[in-house]
């Protein structure tokens, strides 16, 4: 035996650090079997909750601390996750993953072992664990915390084993170049015939339906990128002006960064369109026809075009990443930040600042409604429903090629930046300010936030639609197309292509999913805003082909749309189009419009939510970021009115349904 009494020093058993110890290597199987015989039946019991291909590496009985009540159970480390299985708790077949007890290995941000007063941080394999842990703390990168105390009495070796197993499994998973999704299959579901919970926008029909829904009549679905040869990061289909030919599209897109040319994002029923595109490719030298193509695409039949540069005033990727890291450090339960310095420390992370600037920009843009954005504001009433919001994320983030994998740092690339989490935070701020306008609840946002770290579906696991498609083997139906890399796709360990993050029932019980609905949402609240209101003032014809640059809260006329036409040198100097206009600290919404006078001062359309972004209005998402804190863990967590509201709503619905209409409908009039 290589373990001894308490207080002695241990080194990791040599065979464990062997690099060739594959996930499915025979040794690990052997190791599992090495556990005492008395644990065998237990082990097989534990294994019943395993996913195909998942192996239990080590386990130890323990008690989950912190949260009330304390739960006895078993801490299990497998090759994909760490999970705590409470005694008597049976993983249901329908929800193979648990949002409450599972910690995906990639999600583990910090691991601590505690014995008496000593506390050691462990993450690197090879760092010696000098004692048998009495308790371990697993800090998730999603701000969750799992605290397990091990039972005493002859079981210390197992505590040691499981701790070390976690350390190594974590190390292996971060070494893996591309994280393989957890293989999942949904019981009782024949793949193929299944309809995804929301349109995944992988077929042109989906796009066409969506276009019609928005009423974008002068736009069409372009199939120019069907083979991902225009841009691998773009979806296979997107919307372009009706009059623009596919060849023009191809031409124009070549002059944009990564081929991400201008395309329709959202069509306002008043007639305005929201377009998005990457930056102009500074090195390209377009000819006249190309310029015309770009112009006609940007103009898309409108007389006025406003360009918004999102680089301007918005945090850079590095900023966002740094802020998020700082925030995470600050929110650790043992953060060194002094209590009385909490507010300035929070300010120091600049996270809230960035949330603020995003909201502000988005609010300006939604006033303008003709531009491109990185984070889209929820000005569409429909997008505020649960379903609508999921479609929005699918379209604007997933299908539009947000590099989730890179940004969330799974690949360890330098461009890690939780921009998506920043977006989720922004939406939470909106929800705080307009609690009755959203069908989804804070719990839904929390689930979305967490799911970015759970490698169970392809939705957030690939950088581009192309990679997603490649992985899911979707190209089988298009086999005549050469797709680089397709042949190398390892068969077998791919995630189920049929499943997306929107299949919430993989990880959440039906009671939890019920909580995704905001009981305060009043669908009757904004019926007017759903109706298309003609906004004639938006259509006031201005001077033909006027182009404006929106920056720093002011509009500047541009005499040209593309930076190249007359003076290509302009771009050589700066990536901006124009010298900055005078800095105005007031945002557009505060000025007397700031819009060109000929546009007229039209009242803002109803249904538009313009968030407040003053300092006091931007709040810390405590329920998310402070989850690991002792006060939350200790169940003095502030109560929420949500559950009782839900009960109330259900009770009322029950009345409405059963009580009145079914049983007693005839005598009602009496």
């Amino acid at each position, binding site marked *: 035996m290589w373990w001894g009494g308490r207080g002695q020093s241990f080194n990791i058993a040599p065979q464990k650090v062997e690099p060739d110890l594959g996930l499915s290597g025979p040794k690990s199987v052997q190791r599992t079997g090495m556990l005492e015989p008395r644990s065998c039946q237990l082990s097989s019991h534990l294994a019943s909750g395993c996913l195909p291909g998942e192996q239990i590496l080590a386990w130890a009985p323990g008690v989950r601390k912190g949260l009330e009540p304390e739960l006895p159970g078993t801490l299990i480390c497998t090759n994909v996750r760490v999970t705590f299985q409470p005694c008597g708790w049976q993983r249901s077949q329908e929800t193979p993953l648990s949002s409450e007890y599972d910690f995906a290995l990639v999600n583990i941000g910090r691991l601590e072992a505690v014995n008496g007063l000593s506390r050691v941080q462990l993450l690197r394999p090879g760092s010696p664990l000098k004692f048998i842990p009495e308790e371990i703390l697993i800090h998730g990168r999603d701000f969750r915390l799992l605290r397990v105390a091990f039972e005493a009495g002859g079981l210390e070796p197992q505590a040691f084993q499981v701790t070390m197993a976690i350390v190594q499994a974590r190390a292996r998973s971060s070494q893996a170049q591309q994280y393989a999704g957890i293989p999942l299959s949904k019981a009782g579901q024949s793949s193929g015939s299944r309809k995804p919970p929301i349109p995944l926008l992988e077929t042109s029909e989906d796009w066409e339906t969506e276009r019609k829904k928005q009423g974008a009549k002068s736009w069409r679905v372009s199939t120019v990128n069907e083979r991902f040869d225009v841009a691998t990061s773009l979806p296979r289909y997107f919307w372009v002006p009706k009059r623009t030919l596919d060849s023009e599209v191809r031409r124009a897109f070549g002059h944009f960064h990564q081929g991400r040319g201008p395309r329709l994002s959202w069509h306002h029923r008043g007639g305005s369109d929201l377009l998005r595109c990457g930056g102009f490719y500074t090195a390209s030298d377009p000819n006249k026809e190309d310029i015309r193509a770009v112009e006609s695409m940007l103009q898309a039949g409108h007389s006025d075009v406003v360009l918004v540069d999102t680089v301007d005033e918005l945090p850079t990727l590095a900023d966002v990443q740094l802020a998020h890291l700082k925030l995470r450090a600050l929110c650790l339960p043992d953060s060194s930040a002094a209590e009385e310095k909490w507010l300035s420390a929070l300010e120091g992370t600049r996270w809230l600042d960035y949330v603020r600037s995003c909201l502000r920009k988005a609010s300006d843009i939604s006033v303008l409604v003709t531009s491109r954005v990185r984070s889209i504001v929820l000005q569409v009433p429909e997008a505020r429903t649960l379903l609508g919001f999921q479609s929005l994320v699918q379209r604007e983030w997933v299908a539009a090629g947000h590099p989730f994998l890179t940004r969330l740092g799974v690949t360890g690339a330098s461009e890690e930046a939780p921009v998506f989490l920043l977006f989720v935070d922004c939406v939470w701020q909106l929800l705080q300010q307009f609690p009755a306008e959203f069908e989804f609840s804070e719990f839904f946002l929390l689930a979305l936030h967490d799911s970015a770290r759970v490698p169970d579906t392809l939705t957030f696991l690939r950088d581009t639609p192309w990679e997603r498609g490649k992985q899911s083997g979707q190209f089988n139906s298009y086999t005549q197309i050469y797709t680089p890399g397709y042949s190398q796709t390892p068969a077998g360990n791919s995630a189920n292509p049929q499943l997306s993050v929107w299949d919430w029932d993989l990880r959440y019980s039906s009671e939890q999913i019920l909580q995704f609905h905001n009981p305060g949402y009043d669908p009757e609240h904004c019926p007017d805003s759903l109706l298309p209101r003609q906004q004639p003032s938006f259509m006031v014809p201005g001077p033909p082909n006027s182009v404006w640059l929106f920056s720093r809260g002011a509009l500047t006329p541009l005499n040209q749309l593309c930076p190249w036409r007359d003076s290509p040198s302009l771009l050589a100097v700066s990536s901006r189009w124009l010298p900055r206009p005078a800095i105005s600290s007031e945002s557009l919404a505060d000025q007397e419009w700031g819009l060109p006078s000929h546009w007229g001062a039209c009242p803002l359309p109803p249904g*538009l939510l313009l968030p407040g972004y003053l300092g*006091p209005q931007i*709040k810390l998402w405590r329920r998310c970021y402070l989850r690991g804190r002792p006060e939350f863990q200790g169940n003095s967590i502030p109560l929420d009115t949500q559950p009782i*509201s839900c009960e109330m709503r259900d*009770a009322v619905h029950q*009345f409405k349904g059963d009580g009145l209409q079914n049983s007693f409908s005839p005598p009602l009039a009496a």
Partner: protein
Amino acid sequence: MPPGAGPFKGGFPAAPRGKSPAPRARGRGFPSAFRPPRPCHVMLPRQPARGGGRRAVARGGAAAGGGPWRGRSGAREASSLATAVAPGPRVSSMASAPTSKYNSHSLENESIKRTSRDGVNWDLSEAVPRLPGETRITDKEVIYICPFNGPIKGRVYITNYRLYLRSLETSALTFSIKARSSWQKTSYTESHDSALILDVPLGVISRIEKMGGATSRGENSYGLDITCKDMRNLRFALKQEGHSRRDMFEILTRYAFPLAHSLPIFAFLNEEKFNVDGWTVYNPVEEYRRQGLPNHHWRITFINKCYELCDTYPALLVVPYRASDDDLRRVATFRSRNRIPVLSWIHPENKTVIVRCSQPLVGMSGKRNKDDEKYLDVIRETNRQISKLTIYDARPNVNAVANKATGGGYESDDAYHNAELFFLDIHNIHVMRESLKKVKDIVYPNVEESHWLSSLESTHWLEHIKLVLTGAIQVADRVSSGKSSVLVHCSDGWDRTAQLTSLAMLMLDSFYRSIEGFEILVQKEWISFGHKFASRIGHGDKNHADADRSPIFLQFIDCVWQMSKQFPTAFEFNERFLITILDHLYSCRFGTFLYNCESAREKQKVTERTVSLWSLINSNKDKFKNPFYTKEINRVLYPVASMRHLELWVNYYIRWNPRIKQQQPNPVEQRYVELLALRDEYIQRLEELQLASSAKLPDPSTSPAGPSQMMPHVRTHF
């Protein structure tokens, strides 16, 4: 429940909002006859108070039915009610007033609309809301220099109660106000003319200054600058000719600071009538009886009946059974201002107590008093479970030591063997005043933009809140889990002590979390035990720089708000209740907060000559109810007093900023109220139907979903 006994008896008041112009489609899916009644309880026109039962409340000259306030149209009645419930000084343009989206408020709205629509034809005196007993003094044309929208021309009306301004250029009125409020709040756009309205009770004014002199040139630089006690300033520009500024200054000074001009405070002129008498809310004997007192260890004494033992204590006190009146008198000599240790609250199960008092008069020489020591020991012995009495000195240690120089001090270990002393580090009234001043600096008129959090931190306001809450949590925890009796004092025992005892009681005793319970708590721990409201607020007093002023009570209400944020289902009252209390803390419309102590109030016959704030609140309780309230008995609330979980009360401190204004009423609460009403309606309907069907069907058990089956299920949650 027999049919018709529910809150909506007699069917739904045939749509009190029958011709409601509300544009929204609602009640889809079921017959229009069953449209949910909007929560109409709020603003239904009330029957004029008549009859014996209510007579008791009627005071003053206005005999029921014959007073000047009777016989007006329903709209007037409603409008007086509307002002009654939202009396607070508030800047609001029409568009930012609660829109008619929620019918419960449309009446209120309508009355205002009517005012503005017909304003021109009305007698000017009618254009201003007036309370019974309120008289108009003057009106003047001024330019209101709005910090958010720039100068606005308007007419200001001054009465003996309020300053009321209405902008004149209704049509030209700042597109931006209209637009902004509709952007900021809701998607709702108002089409009617909107006027900016400012309705400020004069009691709120802390200081009036003249700005600019005869020689000043610039536009709008000549006028008045008014500093208010509720976190804002008002600036008016006036014409230099014709002494208009001098007149306005003198009139305002006279009526805002009546004490300096030997005029009565408005509360004594107010002739409002309510159908509930707020003065009967607190009856000390009843409250102590509720706590199970007197018992074997504690007795009620009338030794202070004529305020001879202690002039700042109430007449009725609860003291240990074993302490004689002579003992009490001897103890009084050793406690600052004779404020001896008396019982505030007793734990219903373990019988530990919270006792309050002032500091012992130890002095530099370290005096001792055997009677005081014995008295504390007697208090300790009333609870046999633990060997020590816990003393919480609210002050920082150094302050307690410094107080020895002026004859005060704290209980030393050698003199009080059986007591443990802890200091709670809460700072004095001057520190709190300066801290709040800094808060005002960063929120008014402009909210500090770039470094909001660190600016907020530098005010230390939340830190003080945290210390007060932490202290109260310790007291509550010691009593509840530590099973030890607790004695709380600071220097005089009327500021920090009141904060600590009342907050601890709020945490321990769920009764105080109801509307009436909270009123009793304020009435008992603050008003009757001599928190010096007159000095701390400076009612009717012109000395704005008085060092005795301090926002101690505001700080307490802020702590309550923090608790209600953390426990949204634990309190029967809502945020509006707290804000209304704070508004009338200054307004001088009610007698509730006037004077420093019970003896002074008795001398002035406050309960006979003025109206209680609780009359206003209790006669319109629905408006102040938290729909999420779930009654719980015996649950101790321990809020998290960490900077990570405390927030600035934006809806109070920054409420004048139109950009920060939140949706009022809170749409989620509103929605919940609607659901509650729906549920009640369904229950009632179901009962009616069941009755109807059981009349037809002889066997009631065949009825498939009778209320007997449905209701228990639904009711369990509430």
